[in-house]
């Protein structure tokens, strides 16, 4: 089988339909994120095609593939799809998988739109890779907005000593260090289970602002340790607000944390968001942190097909510089490095009827938190 030229491949077979392969975690450790992405994607495709599922008469044929959080499976699936002449791949919440899929996209010259995976490494990785979510640098820049003037301030990153934590530290150095702050860090070994001493270490570092970058199940005891040792009295602590399932993790500290936020339902308050929420709720699900990532992926896919047909290079040009109204407001794809410029939020958790609920503090405009261009 030779890769078909535009229009003759199976990708636009029959009555003009185009195949789009969605690779995401239906099962596995990040299945919950996967579900939010999936629901958002349904809503997004629906919204962008006006409920028809067609783009200018071409039917969008989305196929769904479980990666189970396992890069091997994801690569196998991707190769299978590319072998079947799919021209568009999208999805995954796992950074490691996103990098593998981006690699496949470049090797085989197909379009890839990554999902909630936040790794900055995707930014400008190659011509064929775009993203539908936000990236770490945007998180970090949002954190910087909690202090009015960063000059001469000491920002301490409290993070796990792993790729995620190191990435965040690098991002903070780049984003906030560039604005005149001195950046220090308390890196906790990834497999440590006892955080109390590190909490002390953090306090002893006398920070003006703490940026906590923490993922995973141990966040509960991490926050408890910070709270118990009195870290909140030392400096404001900023962290990213996760999905609804994690609200319980902050425990007693919840009310004291300053949250930067990618998204929570109701944060944007625009019509697109309302449409997204309505659609997701209609499907019997609740919108969450990563619902917009799926929604935007839907919008980008439709745009790519609309302008590019089945020619990958045309799709790429169609997306580069594309600016549109997304669930988080005005959103645009930077042409040079495919960064997705979008608003971010400051939020806090308040207790309502015995449950923690996010509340908007401030919208951080997209240009304030735009990552530096990647070369």
């Amino acid at each position: 089988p030779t890769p078909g030229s535009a229009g003759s491949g199976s990708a636009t077979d029959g009555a003009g339909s185009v195949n789009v392969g969605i690779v995401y975690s239906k099962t596995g450790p990040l299945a919950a994120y996967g579900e939010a992405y999936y629901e958002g994607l349904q809503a997004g495709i629906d919204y962008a095609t006006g409920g028809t599922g067609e783009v200018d008469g071409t039917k969008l044929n989305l196929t769904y593939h479980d990666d189970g959080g396992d890069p091997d499976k994801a690569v196998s699936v991707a190769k299978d799809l590319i072998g079947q002449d799919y021209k568009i791949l999208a999805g995954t919440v796992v950074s490691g998988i996103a990098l593998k899929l981006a690699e496949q996209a470049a090797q085989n010259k197909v379009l890839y739109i990554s999902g909630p995976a936040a790794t900055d490494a995707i930014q400008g990785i190659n011509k064929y890779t775009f993203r539908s979510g936000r990236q770490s640098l945007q998180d970090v820049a949002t954190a910087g907005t909690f202090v009015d003037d960063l000059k001469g301030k000491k920002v301490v990153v409290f993070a796990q000593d792993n790729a995620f934590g190191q990435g965040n530290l690098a991002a903070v150095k780049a984003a906030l260090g560039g604005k005149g702050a001195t950046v220090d860090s308390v890196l906790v070994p990834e497999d440590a289970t006892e955080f109390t001493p590190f909490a002390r270490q953090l306090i002893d570092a006398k920070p003006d602002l703490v940026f906590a970058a923490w993922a995973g199940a141990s966040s509960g005891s991490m926050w408890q340790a910070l709270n118990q040792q009195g870290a909140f009295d030392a400096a404001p602590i900023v962290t990213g607000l996760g999905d609804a399932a994690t609200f319980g993790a902050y425990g007693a500290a919840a009310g004291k944390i300053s949250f930067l936020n990618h998204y929570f339902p109701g944060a944007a308050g625009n019509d697109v968001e309302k449409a997204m929420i309505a659609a997701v709720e209609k499907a019997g699900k609740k919108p969450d942190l990563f619902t917009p990532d799926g929604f935007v992926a839907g919008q980008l896919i439709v745009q790519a097909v609309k302008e590019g047909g089945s020619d990958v290079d045309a799709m790429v040009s169609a997306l580069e510089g594309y600016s549109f109204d997304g669930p988080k407001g005005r959103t645009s794809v930077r042409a040079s490095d495919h960064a997705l410029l979008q608003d971010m939020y400051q939020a806090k958790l308040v207790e309502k009827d015995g449950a923690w609920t996010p509340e908007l503090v401030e919208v951080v405009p997209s240009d304030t938190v735009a990552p530096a261009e990647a070369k």
Partner: protein
Amino acid sequence: MSTVILLAATGLGLGALYFLVASGLSLIYGLMGVLNFAHGSFLTLGAFAGWEVARRTGADSWWTFLLSILIGAAVGALFAAFTEFVLIRRLYQRHIEQVLITVGLALATVALFEGIWGTDPVFIQGPAWFKDTTELLGARIPNDRFVCIIAAVLVLLAMVLFLKRTRYGMIIRAGVENRSMVTALGIDVRKAFTLVFTIGGAAAGLGGVLASHYFGYVSPLLGGSLLIFAFIVTVIGGLGSLTGAAVASVAVALLQQFANFYFGLGDLAVVLALALVLLFRPAGLLGRKS
């Protein structure tokens, strides 16, 4: 100075937790020669059971906490008894196969728990006192550490008494070596095996509930993540030696704590310690020479 005290005190708490997890494992491994990979699942199930109880009876009272510990231990015990009765019993004296069975069981049960309770961690509430700290020589020690330490000491005492004061320890060691001869002395060795598994499972269930309070969450992977330390502690402590496991738990936890804090190398230090101990004392610190 207060840092050192904090490290030592919390290290002791962590050691207590390791011992709680390892005690059942060590008991089963030492007496029956079964390296139980499913021990983590006993633990996870106990923790989930404890959480279900707490959820239904109002999370933050002491009574709820005690009840969840009891139920957690009971569920762990039942699961373990079931495992022994249905799976392990058929393979007596085939240790490799027994290990393989527990490997399979661990795979299957973790997946099953994910199916039932989902992959996300469930966050746990305990009595409010748990969240407070107690000041000790300038260090603020979280209170739940003390609970772990007390529980670990009680479990150690109970198990040592069981082995010293009852015939079971002997029966089981003999049964591992030559089962038919034990029955030929008029002893029903199967009962003893089931009992040991049950006790090991109860300890795991108890450890699971306490671990979930220590970490603040339960997830299907909770047990598995602790299992490797339980293995290390069991092996360093020495085959079949509960006191060895206790000593090793504290030593490993302290080593890990200090190495983590000062060099960020806690895990590597523990792994290195394991290698060194095994090379120079293959039977472990307090293990019998075979």
